[in-house]
């Protein structure tokens, strides 16, 4: 047993390939047998991943889901930012420049609209919950933008760690909901072509959410959504501690 554990730990990334492969295989089996293919296999795989992350988090008390279990630490590397971005970039292979140009200015507008709308909605929720302090409202609202914009903004304007945790939680909720919810609403919002995917990427913005949501909806749309989403967090970090904070401050002093 100790030898097995040592083997698994020494080959983390390889173990992750095997484990994720099994999880994907089970998911596609469930998709075909239980839902007759109506729920995409990758959507089920993502949900299984999230459930395992929850169980592991309860079990280990860590922040990295399954990756906090020592023999599965490789899942953390495989699902980390480096491999995620590498795989996202590779999906651009075969993309036509023309499709990107067709969306044009609407794609740019969608990024600004996405940041501002998420921030305003987050701010309204914070106010509804009784917050009247500009720093608190801004930090929570920035969390509704993404879980990176939240703590970056909060730290910049001097928010306490409890507020930072709250804003990260809001961002993670958004990211998970985008992953799981996108295939469910895809038809209703017309998410079936490159142009809409670019606008969707700009509006939702959370890279992990958009990556997971589009994978579970139609993998061919991934590069288009990722293209706009990649500018979202940067713009959010730019606007959060500056114009958006000043606007809240002007209203709530």
């Amino acid at each position, binding site marked *: 047993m100790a030898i097995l554990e040592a083997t698994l730990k020494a080959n983390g990334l390889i173990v992750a390939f095997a484990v994720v492969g099994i999880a994907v295989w089970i998911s596609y089996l469930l998709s075909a047998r239980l839902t007759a293919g109506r729920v995409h296999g*990758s959507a089920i795989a993502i*949900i299984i991943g999230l459930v395992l992350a929850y169980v592991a988090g309860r079990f280990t008390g860590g*922040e990295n889901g399954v990756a906090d279990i020592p023999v599965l630490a490789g899942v953390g590397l495989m699902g980390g930012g480096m491999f995620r971005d590498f795989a996202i970039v590779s999906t651009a292979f075969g993309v036509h420049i023309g499709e990107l140009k067709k969306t044009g200015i609407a794609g740019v507008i969608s990024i600004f609209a996405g940041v501002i709308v998420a921030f305003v909605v987050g701010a309204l929720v914070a106010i509804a919950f009784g917050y009247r302090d500009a720093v608190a409202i801004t930090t929570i609202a920035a969390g509704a933008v993404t879980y990176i914009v939240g703590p970056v903004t909060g730290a910049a304007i001097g928010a306490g760690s409890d507020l930072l945790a709250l804003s990260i939680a809001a961002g993670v*909720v958004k990211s998970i909901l985008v992953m799981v919810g996108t295939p469910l609403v895809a038809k209703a919002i017309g998410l079936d072509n490159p142009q*809409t995917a670019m606008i969707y990427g700009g*509006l939702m913005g959370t890279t992990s959410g958009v*990556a997971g949501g589009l994978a579970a909806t139609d993998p061919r749309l991934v590069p288009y959504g990722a293209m706009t989403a990649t500018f979202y967090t*940067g713009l959010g970090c730019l606007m959060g501690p500056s114009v958006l904070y000043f606007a809240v401050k002007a209203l709530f002093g």
Partner: protein
Amino acid sequence: MIIYGVALLAACMVVGTFVGDYLGVLLGVKANVGGVGMAMLLLVTASASTRLRGLVEGASGEGIKFWGAMYIPIVVAMAARQNVVAAAHGGILAVAAGVSATVVCFALVPVLSRLSAKGQRDHADTTGQQGGR
């Protein structure tokens, strides 16, 4: 050679990420600004160029396609390493903020999408007479 394609992909990502990080520092933002997007544009440009054909055709291209096919498994691994417990325990405020922001933005997708389509039609109308596309 498969490695040529993988190397091209890696080079695009390194350059794009570097530019994104640099842009972040220039703007005084503690984040990468559009690095992945720029890497994607580099890859799109490179794969359309005739001079770099040897890096994207045949076996070399397979090296890039492999990573594209690994995208979904990587996303599954990404899901499995999220802090789902924190999201569930952030309390009703975190859930309310996250859910409302997501729902409102979902609802805006068709609105902006229609604006984009309208813009294209208007453009087509004005250029149509000269035999535009």
